[in-house]
């Protein structure tokens, strides 16, 4: 209990208590010792005095006692009146009878017996405050009586007590003065320590390591202060280093190295934070995707790609307001948080400014790099108040923007989800389709109408996804074009097709489709040359098919690409002829080797006479331009017969065969040759005629 109380006391109080307690104890001890000594001494003195008195009296009463002069004896005893401490005195004769007596202030003598006792013992007694002294009265060596003196020690003792009390008071005063002095000295010691403790607490709380304590003392306390300051200095230095490291780590963790913008992590943090106060501060997020960035990266290299990203970052930052956040989420994905907006019109105007800033081509290291961006916008809290949902919806809007044509901004709208989600799913799945070997190439035979001999195969890409199942080529090719994956897929298909075709008989050729995007963005002669070299297929056995849309956006570069391919010996076919823009002008400008008549004409061929006229005209025109014709989607004998009549050179379709897997090609060829053997002659004849 006391220990606990002491434990909670301050050092100062404890020291003061110790000093005060010890001085008081010392005073008390001094008092007790002095009192005891004084008591003993005073008693002794009283006794001695009494004895001396008794001796003198005994001498003086010898004669009165001898001559039985009681009056004279009394006169002697009455002299004791000058000695107040003597209570009474009695002179006893030889028979121990009281011969004369004296009592202080006319008091009475105690019982006779009492006196006798002292007379008989003739000894001094020290019982109680009264001291009895008996002295023999000697005359000529003989005891003639006794003188008994009763002395009170009380007056002497109380005087002594008063003295001792004075000593005690003096000691206490000295003790208190000493305590005060000690406390003063302690204050010089304890107060600086307490102050130091306060500063320590303050520094621990505030982390203000620049704090210093000041003292002019050069003693131990001064040393303590200096040491504390040194410690603080060390802490401060470490704190600075730590802060720098933290800042650097923060920068590393939150910044995108290429653009210097915030990274995905920081964007998510900011988004989470913005969402916590979304009720007072509605905001919008913009998801941006660079158009054809992958192409730039692949064609012009990563350095140019990085420069482009940096440029985009700068332009986005210049468009954004001070409070807004611009981040690069990765790849060619950027995002913005537009603070404190609730009006879609306002966001629209910002998105338009973004589009305007990023629409034109830029020159990077002497190269003209096409730039464009699609923007998806989601408004918080309208389009979601959870970060994941908001991001997903902005993504959906982005895909909506891409689907609607690039270089647009699209706001999220609840109805857009289904189609866009499908697109999003496809795109995500497609990104890993090649590496996961989900893509495959099938081959549909092309047959010469005259000879009925197989002249080659069209390579067609197929995609089977474990969850999505078989995805239709036109659907995923469109997605691949939007997502910038078409070049990769196209190259892969080309390589696969050539690799398979080189195993066939030398007269069999292979036709591979090229997307318009590929023609516009890829260095096709380089690609084709590399693939041919790698697979060992001769250029003459390769045919590439392009669509009319390629020619629609025709540029010098496109034409140059096609001419270069042509020069390599690669044949070029115009796919889906008649479905596009039906401008004949481009047919003049480029020497196609083959026109592929679209299946819609073939379907209608037997039913509509007008169609037959058109097909007839196409074939005539092609013949005039020295182009071969091939009809797609031939599914019945009647169609084939009609085409033969019109002079079409080749057919392709279910009537001949569905697209075949690589391993099915051999058996098909064997079977086809066998079944056509009978009519081979006829066919050849027809071919010659055609």
């Amino acid at each position, binding site marked *: 209990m006391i220990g606990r109380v002491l434990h909670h006391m301050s050092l100062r109080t404890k020291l003061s208590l110790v000093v005060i307690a010890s001085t008081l104890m010392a005073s008390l001890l001094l008092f007790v010792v002095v009192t005891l000594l004084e008591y003993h001494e005073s008693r002794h003195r009283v006794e001695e005095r009494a004895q001396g008195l008794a001796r003198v009296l005994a*001498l*003086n009463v*010898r*004669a*009165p006692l*001898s*001559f*039985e*002069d009681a009056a*004279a004896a009394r006169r002697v005893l009455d002299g004791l009146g000058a000695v107040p401490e003597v209570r009474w005195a009695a002179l006893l004769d*030889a*028979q121990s009878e009281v011969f004369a007596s004296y009592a202080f202030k006319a008091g009475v003598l105690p019982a006779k017996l009492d006196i006798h006792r002292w007379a008989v013992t003739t000894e001094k007694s020290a019982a109680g405050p009264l001291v009895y002294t008996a002295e023999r009265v000697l*005359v*000529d*060596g*003989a*005891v*003639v009586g006794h003188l008994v003196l009763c002395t009170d020690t009380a007056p002497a003792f109380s005087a002594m007590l008063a003295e001792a009390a004075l000593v005690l008071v003096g000691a206490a005063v000295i003790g208190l003065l000493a305590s005060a002095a000690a406390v003063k000295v302690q204050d010089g010691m304890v107060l600086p320590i307490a102050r130091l403790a306060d500063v320590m607490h303050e520094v621990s709380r505030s982390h203000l390591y620049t704090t210093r304590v000041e003292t002019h003392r050069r003693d131990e306390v001064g040393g303590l202060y200096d040491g504390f300051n040194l410690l603080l200095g060390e802490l401060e230095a470490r704190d600075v280093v730590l802060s720098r490291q933290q800042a650097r780590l923060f920068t590393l963790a939150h910044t995108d190295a290429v653009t210097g913008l915030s990274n995905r992590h920081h964007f998510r943090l900011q988004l989470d934070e913005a969402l916590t106060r979304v009720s007072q501060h509605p905001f919008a997020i913009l998801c941006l995707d660079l158009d054809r960035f992958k192409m730039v990266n692949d064609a012009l290299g990563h350095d140019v790609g990085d420069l482009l990203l940096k440029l985009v970052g700068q332009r986005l930052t210049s468009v954004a307001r001070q409070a807004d956040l611009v981040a690069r989420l990765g790849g060619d994905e950027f995002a913005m948080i537009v603070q404190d907006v609730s009006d879609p019109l306002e966001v629209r105007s910002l998105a338009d400014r973004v589009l305007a800033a990023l629409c034109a081509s830029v020159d990077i290291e002497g190269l003209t790099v096409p730039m464009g961006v699609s923007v998806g916008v989601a408004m918080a809290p309208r389009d979601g108040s959870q970060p994941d949902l908001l991001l997903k919806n902005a993504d959906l809007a982005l895909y909506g923007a891409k689907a609607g044509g690039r270089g647009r901004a699209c706001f999220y709208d609840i109805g857009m989800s289904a189609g866009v989600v499908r697109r999003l799913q496809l795109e995500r799945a497609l990104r890993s389709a090649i590496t996961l070997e989900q893509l495959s190439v099938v081959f549909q035979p092309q047959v010469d109408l005259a000879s009925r001999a197989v002249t080659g195969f069209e390579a067609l890409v197929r995609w089977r996804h474990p969850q999505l199942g078989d995805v239709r080529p036109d659907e995923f090719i469109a997605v691949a074009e939007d997502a910038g994956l078409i070049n990769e897929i196209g190259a892969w298909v080309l390589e696969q097709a050539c690799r398979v075709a080189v195993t066939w008989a030398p007269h069999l050729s292979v036709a591979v489709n090229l997307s318009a995007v590929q023609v516009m963005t890829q260095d096709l002669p380089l690609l084709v040359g590399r693939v041919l070299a790698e697979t060992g297929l001769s250029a003459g056995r390769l045919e590439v098919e392009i669509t009319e849309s390629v020619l629609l956006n025709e540029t010098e570069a496109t034409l140059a690409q096609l001419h270069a391919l042509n020069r390599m010996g690669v044949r070029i076919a115009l796919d889906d002829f008649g479905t596009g823009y039906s401008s004949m002008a481009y047919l003049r400008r480029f020497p196609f080797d083959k026109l592929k008549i679209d299946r819609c004409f073939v379907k209608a061929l037997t039913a509509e006479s007008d169609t037959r006229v058109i097909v007839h005209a196409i074939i005539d025109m092609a013949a005039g331009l020295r182009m071969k014709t091939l009809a797609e989607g031939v599914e019945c004998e009647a169609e084939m017969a009609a085409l033969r009549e019109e002079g079409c050179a080749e057919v392709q379709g279910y009537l001949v065969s569905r697209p075949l897997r690589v391993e099915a090609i051999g058996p098909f060829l064997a079977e086809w040759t066998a079944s056509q053997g009978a009519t081979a002659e006829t066919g050849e004849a027809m071919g010659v005629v055609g």
Partner: protein
Amino acid sequence: MLVWSDVAQAAPDESAVQAAFVLNFAKFTEWPPAGQPARQSAMQLCQFGVRDELTQAFRALEGRSLQGAPIQWRKVSRLDEARGCHVLFVAEAGLSLVQLGGLPVLTVSDLPGFAQQGGVIGLVRQSGRLRFEVNRGVAQSAGLRLSADLLSLAMTVFDGSARHEGTL
């Protein structure tokens, strides 16, 4: 002590009291060195004049020690016999004390005016109590030193210069 108590018990007996007084006088008296009882074989207690009760009382004291010497009683019929006496009790008149001259003899008597007429100590009865008168001059001339205590108890202290001529 016994003697003392005897005397006390014999209080009514004047002689016993007188004997006790005489004894006490001797106790408070100092003799000159030559005449000190201790130097001699005994303390001579002499009586002049016939008084049987007193003689009886004195003899009862015989053998008792006084100032270190045993008390010896003897009768003195002439003054020249008093040489050697320490104490001389004069029981009858008719003795000329002047013949004692400077002899250190403590003379005591109950004869009236004894101290005034050359005796050292005279016993006087007053108010039923026995008291005494002292002649300090005689004592001094006899070479006797009387205790101050004794003097203080004396009824009267005379300062007669010496024993003078006269007969009691």
